[in-house]
């Protein structure tokens, strides 16, 4: 009888300890994950987004930072040869000190551009910022959201995207990035730890974007079935992106932030439609074009920024796929950008003309 009572007491105690340990473990895991989700927002740029860090570092390298900065994705990365643009501008304006800098990153959009510009202005304020823009970039449904969650978005940045997390196909990435950050950002945390211990970024963090190399040549069209299929898949992806097109949400807010920063810092912001092949442009229905045009006009009124549509400035034969130009397209686009867009803008600055001039591409 005594033994049975003793056994029962022991079991009850054991059960209570097990409950306490499990509940403690559960709450400790929740707290540690919350700490992780806060910590990752403080992670240095070179750990979480090494491409952006390389761009910022390259911008800061010269004694006098460039006065023309191009922000965008790999489309702009391929399309703009900043040395060529710089050469054209120097000969066109006669100003041998003018500098252009291509700050585009792969998988970039307005979220990325806003982040990069906020870092660049801490090193020096450019005069002109050329911002890549196409209808998909300001679509409420952001297909890059999954990438942004990993590399640049913080809790504050995520907030405007929250209503559209599911339609953007980033629910699982959002959940893992914010609820189990130690898992999703494990490589970032490890790199950060190494950086803290060694005091310098690990070599793997020094990633040079291809278009930042002086000897880089934009790839030409591979003319094989695999490339054709990849292009088709790509177009299918964009078609899906543009379904139920609606401007707004996080991307529009980030564009607003970007343009506000430009206005506050007295930077001339030029929204430029990146060159696209006819098959890509065909994805934009008249309804999409209409709402995009209305939105661009609204932005122009609100922030005084021009929209210059260069989407059809490069012929289809000069594309390596549906939305990246080859070397010939790169040369052509760099010249158009320098001669027809940037040179008149620089002239305006040089002649201290405060009156807003319209380029031939202004809408």
């Amino acid at each position, binding site marked *: 009888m005594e033994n049975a009572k003793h056994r029962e007491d022991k079991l009850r105690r*054991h*059960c*209570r*300890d*097990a*409950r*306490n*340990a*499990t*509940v*403690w*473990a*559960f*709450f*400790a*895991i929740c*707290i*540690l*994950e919350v700490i*992780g989700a806060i910590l990752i927002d403080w992670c240095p740029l070179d750990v979480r987004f090494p491409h952006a860090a390389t761009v910022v570092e390259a911008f800061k390298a010269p004694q006098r930072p460039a006065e023309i900065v191009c922000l965008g994705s790999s489309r702009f990365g391929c399309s703009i040869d900043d040395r060529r643009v710089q050469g054209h501008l120097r000969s066109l304006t006669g100003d041998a000190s003018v500098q252009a800098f291509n700050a585009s990153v792969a998988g970039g959009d307005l979220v990325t551009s806003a982040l990069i510009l906020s870092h660049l202005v801490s090193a020096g304020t450019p005069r002109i910022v050329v911002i890549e823009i196409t209808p998909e970039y300001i679509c409420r449904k952001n297909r890059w959201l999954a990438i942004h969650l990993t590399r640049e978005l913080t809790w504050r940045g995520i907030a405007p995207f929250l209503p559209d997390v599911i339609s953007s196909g980033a629910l699982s990435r959002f959940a893992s990035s914010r609820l*189990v950050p*130690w*898992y999703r950002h*494990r*490589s970032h*945390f*490890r790199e950060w730890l190494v950086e803290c211990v060694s005091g310098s970024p690990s070599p793997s963090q020094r990633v040079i974007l291809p278009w930042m190399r002086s000897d880089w040549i934009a790839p030409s069209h591979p003319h094989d079935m695999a490339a054709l299929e990849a292009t088709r898949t790509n177009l299918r992806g964009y078609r899906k992106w543009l379904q139920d097109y609606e401007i707004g949400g996080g991307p529009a807010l980030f564009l607003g932030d970007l343009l506000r920063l430009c206005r506050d810092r007295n930077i001339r912001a030029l929204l430029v439609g990146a060159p696209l092949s006819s098959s890509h442009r065909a994805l934009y229905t008249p309804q999409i074009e209409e709402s995009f045009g209305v939105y661009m006009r609204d932005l122009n009124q609100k922030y005084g920024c021009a929209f210059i549509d260069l989407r059809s400035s490069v012929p289809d034969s000069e594309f390596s796929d549906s939305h990246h130009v080859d070397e010939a397209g790169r040369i052509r686009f760099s010249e158009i950008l320098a001669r027809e867009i940037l040179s008149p803008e620089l002239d305006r600055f040089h002649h201290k003309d405060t009156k807003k001039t319209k380029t031939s591409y202004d809408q």
Partner: protein
Amino acid sequence: MLCLLAASIIFYAFWSPWYLLVIFASTSVDYMVALKMAALQAQRLRKILLWLSLSVNLGLLAFFKYGNFLTINFLNLVGSERAAPVFHVVLPLGISFYTFEAISYVVDVYRRRIEPVRNPADYALFILFFPHLIAGPIVRPGFFFPQVRRQKRFDWIRIQLGCELFLRGLFKKAVIADHLAAAVDPVFADPASFASRAIWWAVVCYTVQIYCDFSGYSDMAIGLAHSFGFKLPVNFRMPYLSLDISEFWRRWHITLSSWLRDYLYFPLGGSREGRLKTYRNLLLTMTLGGLWHGAGWTFVFWGFYHGTLLSINRALRGRVGLPRMLAGLLTLLAVSVGWVFFRADSFSTALTVLTRMFVPADGRIQDGMLLIGAASLILIVCVGHAIGAGIFGKFIRLGRILPAPAWGVAMATTFVIAQLLMPDDGKLFIYFQF
């Protein structure tokens, strides 16, 4: 129970909803055959039903798993010059495991060891219960059905135990096994370019990797099942501490080796019909066990190799006495050599690895940091084994002596560390392919 069954069906459907039809078809046949068999008295009819069920189960396994292997080898055997047709069929997840479970159920009913289950949901749960569905442990019906019938109560002790086991398994798999793969994969991809010591390192690392990978999965499965109020059989008991190969098979993948013993080795005659027949039975059982692992001659040979080792062990039992340490090391070496055939994608790769293991050769070696990392992970496993074997004194579960909050925080910290140390390119469990 129905919730668990629904969860298991959803779990399987996530991978492939179409293959649910395969699993439902075989499950229905086995369920009905067992019911009918129990109702019949005529032994001949019962046997016919048994063969019907075995044919369906093994037929599906043969079609999905061995279709291409059998076709290619048949055409080679008859000397056909035609290129063997390749069937592009995806192996249904866990088919090898649930086929063995289904066979054990039908055979046990046939032997009148158990009564057939009346409720089809109970039988479906036995086959589909998601913690063990994909890669075991192989559960016996006599072990599982009493638990289905038992009233389930929320039990904190089981939840805690389940969490601990799950964490242990996660750590073994994600931290140890997946990182060791980095020291193994390049060597087995191109063994001819590596030096002998690099090959030895790779083989040692693979020996630890496969243990941590598979026993890690088993721990996670057992832990998950505990949390749902089910006990699954133990699958590993520190097998690398075995002093002979027969002990190794009593400690490694215990549910498979005991299944092979009860449903193959004993029906073949076991050790009752003389020495030569015992060797034959051992060879046959282990060779088929090797084939069960994969449709490839390297797996068949791996099984045959272990059958040979078991036969030698049986022949020498009581005649040769080795110091315990030496016996343990020899067993570990023999097992490690066997893993070469298990890991290599072809005989030529396996032979190159073995040649370079035993004949000194120059070549590439793994990166120094990689070796230090691998050595640290192996050391963790060794320390774990030493603790488990009681080398540092009587093993006491920390959970029993630490205050509950400290133990809870320790579990949470282990979970976070496991997440943090997972490699960037997570790998599937090795046994998923079987």
